[in-house]
């Protein structure tokens, strides 16, 4: 009957109880939406970084990472590429020749990182081919074509078919330069990439990087110079396994995953859970005071009745339990509805996405996509349900304590 009594008590003031239920369900919905938003943002940032530049795994000559000198290229890059591609979990792998130098137009100069790529392999690893907003991604056979970011194009004041000059040191340390025509312009969604990274065909870059070969001289350097093998997996689950396989097969090379290559990505990844928890805690704090306020009112307006219950023999434990039970019942009404609404919202916007193109400049600045897809780790559902239930119990303790502090002899006479 305590359950029955508690259940009927919560419907004595229907409006007030519904307000609490709605507050609880809105709190849960908001917590789920905010967590989904934050997780989606973090995931978008990570995904963008992986797809635009970092990939899941990179392999380098150890000294290339340490010194950044182009002379530390990968030995037997073709064997490495073939081995990587033979792994089942590998979605794509590409070799990159990387130099840093200057890019100049007739109007301006900028520092830049140049990737010499095989466009077919690169397309399987990164999304530059999809990010093309003008021109193409090396689809014609012409030599010395370059693809650069929109931001860099703006800075250099160049457009499609404009001529730019790349200047950098070749493998012998001699300054070399080559003229390229703009074949494509991309917008990767990451402003930093867009204003600093240019892509050319690997064969064109090798022609400048290894001039003696081009001139038909001695074979001082191998025919293919690659500094980086970038590997994209079908998901991050097998990242450690594939990394280990590559490392075992090529023990002299440095195999790193994106978490090691870009600590900010690891930070984002680990903080997704924390961000969700912080949102949840803030919302639960607001909920605590709402519940305390309501239940305190419920107790204060029933002082005489509570006094009577204790007078006729309802002990303090039972009175206490009744108040806690009433709060729990309100919570149990709000939680499933809130979780269901939250689930629907997160699922819908996870599938369709939220169009944030109105803030595209700011989004790109932070390396985020314009379409944000909400995403919620299943553990957050558990956290929310447990969190709200514990919050409700905690919030009911003070009103319940107030109730059992009543002296029946005084409470009975309360008007």
């Amino acid at each position: 009957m305590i359950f029955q009594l508690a259940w009927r008590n919560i419907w004595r003031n229907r409006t007030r109880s519904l307000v609490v239920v709605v507050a609880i369900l809105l709190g849960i919905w908001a917590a789920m939406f905010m967590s989904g938003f934050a997780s989606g943002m973090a995931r978008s940032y990570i995904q963008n970084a992986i797809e635009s530049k970092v990939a899941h795994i990179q392999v380098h000559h150890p000294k290339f990472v340490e010194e950044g000198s182009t002379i530390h290229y990968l030995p037997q890059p073709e064997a490495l590429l073939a081995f990587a591609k033979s792994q089942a979990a590998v979605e794509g792998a590409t070799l990159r020749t990387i130099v840093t130098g200057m890019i100049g137009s007739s109007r301006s100069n900028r520092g830049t990182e140049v990737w010499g790529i095989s466009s077919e392999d690169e397309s399987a690893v990164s999304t530059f081919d999809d990010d093309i907003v003008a021109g193409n991604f090396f689809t014609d056979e012409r030599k010395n074509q370059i693809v650069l970011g929109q931001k860099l194009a703006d800075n250099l004041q160049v457009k499609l078919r404009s001529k730019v000059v790349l200047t950098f040191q070749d493998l012998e340390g001699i300054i070399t330069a080559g003229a390229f025509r703009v074949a494509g312009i991309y917008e990767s969604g990451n402003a930093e990439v867009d204003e600093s990274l240019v892509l050319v065909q690997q064969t064109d870059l090798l022609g400048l990087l290894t001039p003696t070969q081009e001139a038909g001289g001695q074979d001082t350097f191998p025919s293919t110079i690659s500094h980086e093998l970038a590997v994209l997996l079908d998901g991050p689950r097998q990242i450690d396994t594939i990394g280990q396989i590559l490392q075992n097969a090529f023990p002299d090379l440095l195999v790193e995953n994106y978490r090691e290559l870009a600590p900010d990505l690891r930070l984002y990844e680990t903080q997704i859970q924390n961000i969700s928890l912080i949102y949840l805690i803030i919302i639960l704090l607001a909920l605590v005071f709402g519940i305390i306020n309501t239940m305190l009112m419920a107790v204060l307006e029933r002082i005489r009745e509570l006094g009577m219950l204790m007078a006729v023999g309802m002990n303090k434990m039972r009175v206490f339990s009744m108040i806690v039970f009433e709060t729990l019942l309100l919570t149990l009404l709000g939680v499933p509805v809130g979780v269901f609404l939250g689930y629907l919202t997160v699922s819908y916007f996870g599938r369709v996405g939220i169009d944030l193109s109105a803030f595209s400049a700011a989004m790109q600045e932070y390396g985020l996509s314009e379409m944000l897809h909400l995403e919620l780790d299943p553990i957050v559902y558990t956290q929310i349900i447990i969190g709200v239930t514990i919050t409700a119990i905690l919030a009911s303790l003070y009103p319940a304590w107030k109730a059992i502090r009543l002296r029946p002899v005084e409470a009975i006479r309360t008007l």
Partner: protein
Amino acid sequence: MSIIKTTQITKVYNPDKVPVRALRGVDLSIEQGEFTAIVGPSGSGKTTLLNIIGGLDRPSSGDVSIAGQDISQLTDNELIDFRKDNIGFVFQSYNLIPVLTALENVEFVMLLQKRPLAERRARAEELLEAVGLKDKLHKRPSELSGGQQQRVAVARALASKPAFVLADEPTANLDSSSTAQLLDIMAELNQKEGITFIFSTHDQRVIDRAQRVVTLVDGHIDHDQDRRTQPQ
């Protein structure tokens, strides 16, 4: 045999500030089966005495023995259990549980006593029939008149098979007809089943029906009239 015995009980409110002496050495003994009214002007200590006898309040000094047990030594929770099993209460404002039906209100104390459902249900129905509310079993208090509510309160007070029933101004909010009906029911229960009733009241109609009238003045017993042995 006395079921209630108070020995030199005093009650002082605000002892450290402005002391108010509500009771000044009250000796009272009530036997099983009495139908007793405690009367007196406002502030005479009627309610305080009733609260102390009912285990709702503690005396500042003196002893209170109910059915042979000194209740002044009990803790708050022990007192709640003691009240549940030994004392029935009828309050001036009925104080029924508004969300429960008449039947459930009467069952409630038996539920606290952990009596089986069948026994609870049977006794509650029997008591409500005894107070003339057989056709109102499933009505909530808001659907009953004041007199009917007070009759439910009487049935509730009797449900736990208490040693006695304390009724604090039970007719204060009732009209003449309801008062007469209620008094008839309580008198009948007293005579037929030997249930002890103790009232605090101002109501002459209650006083007229009482077998014993204890008059309190300024916190002490001024007059104790037993009408079973003395002429009225």
